[in-house]
């Protein structure tokens, strides 16, 4: 049985009351709920309490943005400290990150970029995946990210790179259908080539979302309810991903208000209809 879920950024009682009862999985992004207190980056105690309450009715997962697993210099240790805190305080079902980099030599880019798919990058990423797998006794998943630049290329195709990480480390994958739609729209790949090559047996979670078109490029701002085309793609992909445990609808916190919690709740109902066939 595939669960349906949503991301939650904390401290939104209307969201908790209206949307979360419909979610079997609640995805938490450490970076989005962290704050700085006394010069330290921490998860506030009141947020941990709120997440504990949510965990009584739904499975919690951690989905990071700031790990920067593909940074040549180092992963973000302060991000890992947040994950440590969440892992030790909550019952987390699994955790995941994006296959990209957000910092270079410690400098935050303000965006996430994809690394070139070289053997050098592959070896670095695999070694870090193994470090994370040893650090937390939980399944770890990686998500391919949207690229707004020309394809950086390398020794592998986009799907082949993900497959090789899976083969070397045993980690799972998040298949983000909206990210794939962005890359297809931005002429970096075709969905059939990507999905035919990707090891779909390694997909443990599927993401859906919607964003905008900016100067001809489809960008992943997670600002709207999903398009019918995305749900149609989900319907097509589900029979091919036998190990997928959850479908998560993602929306960034600032867009929750303009979209409305009722519309988001309806979105979860729509997703559940697709998942239940």
């Amino acid at each position, binding site marked *: 049985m595939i669960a349906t879920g949503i991301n939650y950024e904390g401290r939104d009682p209307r969201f908790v009351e209206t949307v979360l009862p419909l979610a079997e999985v609640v995805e938490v992004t450490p*970076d989005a709920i*962290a*704050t*700085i207190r006394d010069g330290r*980056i921490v998860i506030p105690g009141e947020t941990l309490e709120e997440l504990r309450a949510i965990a009584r009715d739904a499975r919690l997962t951690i989905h990071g943005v*700031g790990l920067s697993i593909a*940074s*040549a*210099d180092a992963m973000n240790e302060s991000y890992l400290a947040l994950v440590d805190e969440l892992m030790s305080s909550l019952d987390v079902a699994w955790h995941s990150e994006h296959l990209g*980099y*957000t910092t*270079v*030599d410690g*400098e*935050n*880019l*303000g*965006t996430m*970029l994809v*690394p*070139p798919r*070289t053997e*050098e*990058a592959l070896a*670095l990423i695999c070694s870090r995946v193994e470090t994370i797998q040893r650090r937390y006794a939980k399944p770890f998943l990686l998500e391919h990210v949207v*690229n*707004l*630049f*020309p394809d*950086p*290329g390398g020794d592998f195709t986009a799907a082949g790179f993900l497959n090789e990480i899976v083969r070397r480390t045993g980690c799972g994958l998040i298949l983000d259908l909206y990210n794939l739609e962005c890359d297809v729209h*931005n002429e970096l790949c075709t969905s059939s080539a990507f999905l035919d090559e990707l090891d779909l047996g390694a997909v443990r979670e599927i993401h859906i979302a919607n964003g905008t078109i*900016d*100067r*001809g*490029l489809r*960008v992943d*701002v997670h600002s709207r309810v999903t398009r019918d085309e995305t749900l149609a793609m989900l319907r097509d992909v589900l029979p091919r991903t036998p190990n997928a445990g959850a479908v998560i609808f993602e929306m960034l916190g*600032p867009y929750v208000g303009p979209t409305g919690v009722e519309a988001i709740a309806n979105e979860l109902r729509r997703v559940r209809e697709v998942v239940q066939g």
Partner: protein
Amino acid sequence: MSLAEHQRAMRDLIAGRAIANDPYIEQASRAIGLEVTRDTIRGWRVFRLSQSCRLTTAILRARGRFDEALDAMQCSSPFIEELSRAFLESAIALGDELIASVANFELALMGDEETIVDWPCDPYEVLAVLLRDEPLPELGHAPHRTFVSRSMPGRFRVV
């Protein structure tokens, strides 16, 4: 190019510092995605600061100096607390007495320490206008002083 060199070149390209002598980086420098990425980074930063530093954003916009303060800030932190502090310090450094008062006041509201903030005019008059997003009226010179403290009901008072 090694992975580290590639990533430094992409960082410098996005920040507008340099275009490395490399076919891929040169191709990326001509991509529409570069402008979209830069605008997205800036737009997201503006949105977050507008939410977090509402008063200072309002006074800077009223004075036509928002972009100047944003461009001058030296901070790339993903954390809004650090970003806000840098933005407020950048606003203070512009040298406009009223902007500095509002930014110092907002900085004091964010902090834990009890702080005195001096104003060139009546702060209630200014704050009311900024909170209502109304145009700034002509403000006569009337120095005031506020005391800001987390332990005080209402967080501040004129002293």
